[in-house]
């Protein structure tokens, strides 16, 4: 089937093509809801059963970094929406600008995530044979990035949690399985999103998008906003379980 300009051969009009692609993306997002939903269920069951371990795990995450990343991702949703607006109003330069900003913010998010993951590796908090929730507290010299006040707080929390849950280490590992599973899956989706954004950037520089045809920007936007929504839920679920203690 041949293609004439933006119109693919199986379609009769650009309107039909746009309608089809948009519906396709929404249905795909529903599959993503169910995909993340499965791991959310695993998280829910385990959080309820092992609340102390999950709370402990959550408190070892950096609220600052997590909060910052949330702001970054929300901002990237804003810039993405603006990119769609620019394409709807045929402002070629602005499309490129906003797409670039979105990509930039995405990379900031990756950078912060990298820092967080590296920290977890360093602190023996990656699920597997060497997982040890007590590692930093038992080896303060090895975890120099935690200052004395935080270290004391963590030690206290661990003592309380260990009393409530004798098997704290195994259950905390479940928390971290959920953490890496959910954030890892989310990061993977962001990488794919970044790839799509690079493609969009290339096309927008080539002048492909205007008020008459901007559907690709629109549907990549839908995908990107969805990835943002996942993080909107991940942030409180992973970072804010039991902060008030």
């Amino acid at each position, binding site marked *: 089937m041949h293609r004439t300009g933006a119109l693919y051969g199986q379609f009769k*009009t650009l*309107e*039909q093509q746009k*309608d089809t692609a*948009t*519906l396709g993306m*929404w*249905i795909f*997002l*529903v599959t993503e*809801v*169910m995909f993340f*939903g*499965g791991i*959310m*269920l695993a998280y*829910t*069951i385990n959080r*309820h*059963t092992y609340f102390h371990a999950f709370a402990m795990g959550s408190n070892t995450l950096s*609220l600052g970094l997590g*909060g910052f990343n*949330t*702001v970054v991702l*929300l*901002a990237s*949703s*804003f810039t*993405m*929406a*603006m990119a769609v*607006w620019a394409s*709807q*109003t045929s402002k070629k330069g602005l499309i490129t600008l906003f797409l670039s900003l979105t990509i930039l913010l995405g990379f900031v998010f990756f950078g912060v995530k990298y820092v967080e993951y590296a920290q977890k590796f360093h602190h023996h908090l990656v699920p597997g044979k060497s997982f040890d929730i007590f590692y930093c507290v038992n080896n303060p010299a090895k975890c120099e990035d935690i200052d004395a006040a935080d270290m004391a707080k963590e030690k206290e929390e661990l003592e309380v949690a260990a009393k409530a849950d004798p098997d704290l280490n195994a259950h905390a590992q479940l928390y971290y399985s959920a953490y890496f599973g959910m954030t890892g899956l989310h990061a993977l989706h962001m990488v794919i999103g970044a790839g799509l954004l690079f493609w969009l950037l290339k096309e927008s520089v080539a002048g492909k998008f205007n008020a008459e045809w901007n559907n690709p920007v*629109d549907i990549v*936007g*839908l995908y990107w*906003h*969805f990835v*943002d*929504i996942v993080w*909107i*839920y991940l*942030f*409180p*679920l992973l970072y*804010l*379980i*039991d*902060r*008030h203690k």
Partner: protein
Amino acid sequence: MAEHEHTEHIVSPGMYLTIILTLLALTGITVFAAFVDLGRFNIVVALLIATVKATLVVLIFMHAKYAPERTKLVIVAGIFWLALLLFMTLSDYASRVDYRGVRYPMTQIISHKIQQEG
């Protein structure tokens, strides 16, 4: 199916700005609320705020408010199915008596009844 010729509704940058500021404010509130001891309602408040944020993103950033009915049906179906997965599975857990040593609210009612009947 007849192509309905709808002129594309273009959301203004002003509206987007309002939404992002609201989202940022709600994020602040979530963090703040996490430091208040609401007992078992902490999670309820957190999820409620997250849902408000998600709703704003879906309606405005993703243009669902201006989308055809069919799109709205797809969105509702997705949320409904996720709810099915979560709530029906939780109902099984909640109704098991003393499973894995966890007391679910419903098991407390059931096991209390069993104790009463002897």
